[in-house]
């Protein structure tokens, strides 16, 4: 195993994400979180590597499956659990919940539960950065299903046309709810990116946060140098059901063997020495965040009509 500071730092963040998700699984049956959760287990390394490759001023947009992105960018854990629990101490006072996590203090500017709707938000942010000369890069993380939406075409075309500083990252877990990419896409993702002249790279080892960080940093450097948008496809694996805390192998739409093969390569499973060195402190941090979140009251009537206009 590599043992350098960057590896340890990223490993710790990835493990933190996984243990947060496992804590959610643990407390979910008690109905402390009364809203849908789309868990990131299996996909942690993507967010960790990407955020490690960004600079502090950069901007991030994600999907309804953004627990990993929130934690990876440095989001506060107590505010996250409070948000999931619908408490006033949540990052968005409980009005966002799991599907709409953000953390503007670290540049995480939105997550949407309408597939692909955030793609133009990242491009608009990149346009703002270009207009204002801020040297920011906009990171746009989306699933493979986003590429089937019409707005993806509009967005890629415009980003390429104006050479905007945006990094498009497709987290390809091959599933849209229960439907395989084979049954959804007549096109090649690589050829789609190249159609717009957007440089494309693919990472097959989506569990390898070091590799994600290395490639994403290279993309970001090119973008920051004025090279226009870049497209990064990262193969990843959704371990749990689309929504909820359970597993759904055995319902005939996917195969457990692929999961086992993924786990065999997942550093969070294979590097048990690092797990052992970090897990106690991480679990204590999570436990404290849950306690603090539960201490936060529910939002009151005064919040019902606040922030509408």
């Amino acid at each position, binding site marked *: 195993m590599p043992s350098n500071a960057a590896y340890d730092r990223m490993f710790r963040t990835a493990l933190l994400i996984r243990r947060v998700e496992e804590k959610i699984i643990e407390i979910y049956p008690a109905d402390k979180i009364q809203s849908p959760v789309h868990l990131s287990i299996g996909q942690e390394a993507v967010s960790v590597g990407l955020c490690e490759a960004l600079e502090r001023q950069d901007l991030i947009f994600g999907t309804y499956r953004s627990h990993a992105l929130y934690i990876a960018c440095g989001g506060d854990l107590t505010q996250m659990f409070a948000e999931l629990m619908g408490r006033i101490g949540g990052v968005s006072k409980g009005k*966002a919940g799991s599907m709409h996590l*953000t953390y503007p203090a670290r540049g995480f500017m939105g997550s*949407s539960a309408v597939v692909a709707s955030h*793609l*133009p938000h990242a491009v*608009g942010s990149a346009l*703002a950065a270009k207009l204002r000369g801020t040297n920011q890069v906009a990171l746009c993380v989306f699933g493979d299903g986003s590429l089937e939406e019409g707005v993806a075409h509009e967005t890629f075309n415009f980003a390429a046309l104006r050479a905007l500083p945006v990094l498009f990252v497709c987290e390809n877990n091959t599933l849209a709810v229960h439907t395989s990419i084979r049954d959804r896409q007549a096109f090649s993702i690589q050829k789609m990116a190249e159609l717009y002249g957007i440089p494309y790279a693919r990472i097959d080892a989506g569990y390898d946060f070091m590799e994600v960080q290395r490639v994403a940093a290279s993309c970001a450097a090119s973008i920051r140098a004025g090279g226009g948008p870049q497209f990064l496809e990262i193969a990843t694996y959704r371990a749990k059901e689309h929504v909820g805390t359970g597993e759904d192998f055995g319902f005939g739409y996917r195969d457990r063997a692929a999961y086992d093969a993924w786990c065999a390569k997942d550093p969070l499973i294979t590097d048990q020495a690092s797990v052992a060195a970090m897990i106690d402190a991480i679990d204590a941090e999570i436990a404290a965040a849950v306690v603090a979140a539960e201490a936060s009251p529910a939002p009151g009537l005064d919040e019902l009509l606040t*922030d509408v*206009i």
Partner: protein
Amino acid sequence: MTSATPEIVSYANALLETMDGALGASPNTVILGQGADDFKGIFGSTTGLAVKYGKDRVSDMPLMEEGMTGIAVGLALNGVYPILTHIRSDFVLLSANQIINLIAKYKYMFGGLFELPMLIRTVVGRSWGQGAQHSQSLQSLFAHIPGLTVIAPSSAQTVLDTYPYLTSTFRGPVISFEHRMLYSLDFEVDRTPLANPLAPRLIRSGSDLTIVATSIMVLEAKRAARWLEEHAGITCDVIDLHCLTNIDPTLILTSLKKTGRLVVADTSWPAFGTAAEVCRLVVQADPTLLKAPVRSLGMAPAPCPTAKALEDLYYPNLGTVVDAAASLVRGRADHGVPLPAEKTMSDIYKKFRGPF
């Protein structure tokens, strides 16, 4: 005596002035839209601004209504004020996902962390065979959605007193429905600032009837009120609703206390529309204010036909407003008030361009 000759400004020039003003006031204001930088300049409302401020700030766009609207979200999140233009409001439906699912909710859904100040300008078509897909007045569709502010400026005056407020001060997303037939008309304008540019306005006073109107129907209501006074001695309060969201009903209720009779004249379909909303506000406040049934005037409940013969029947006109008003005030259909002969507003406004 104050000046005997009031200032006259066309609707298009009022738009151009406010667009110029917004770009001049802040380097972080941009206009995005198909053809925003071209020689027609969105019917004269952006003409020359791309030369003056550069094509980065007055920017032509590919045909990407949803994408463009999403880009406006990204701009607004980062301190840039976007003004979007659509040469027909029908095309805004392609961006409805962004407007309804994202823009309307961004502030609330994220607990007030973000604001999306922006102005979406859309042009409502009418006449000369605009047909079913170039003619829709979709204000009530968007006014239904919490989080949006929807306006329908009826005059150069309302453009001049409202747009600078929106682009410099107001912190939310606004959709403006600008009627194409208003663009070439001239209006008397008063430069006195208003305390609340989004409030309804009383633009003519009377005692027999209250007409609440939007957009170009405000002009028809004013013309009808003049006709009724000249030909039947019937006098009307005419209220320009102006903003269709979060309506303060005080002005309408005060008027109805005096008149007891209400006509609502909107540019769109009455069902689930402006008339329905005004009636809701009135009956929720005090149903005893109404001495007679309410009349609502709007487009016929069908897609807009292209044939002129049908189009003339499709829209309310001066005659239908006068007829509705007179029958309400007289309490019978054979009210005896002479009706104007004109069949279609568009023919009149081609010949008479104001000042209003």
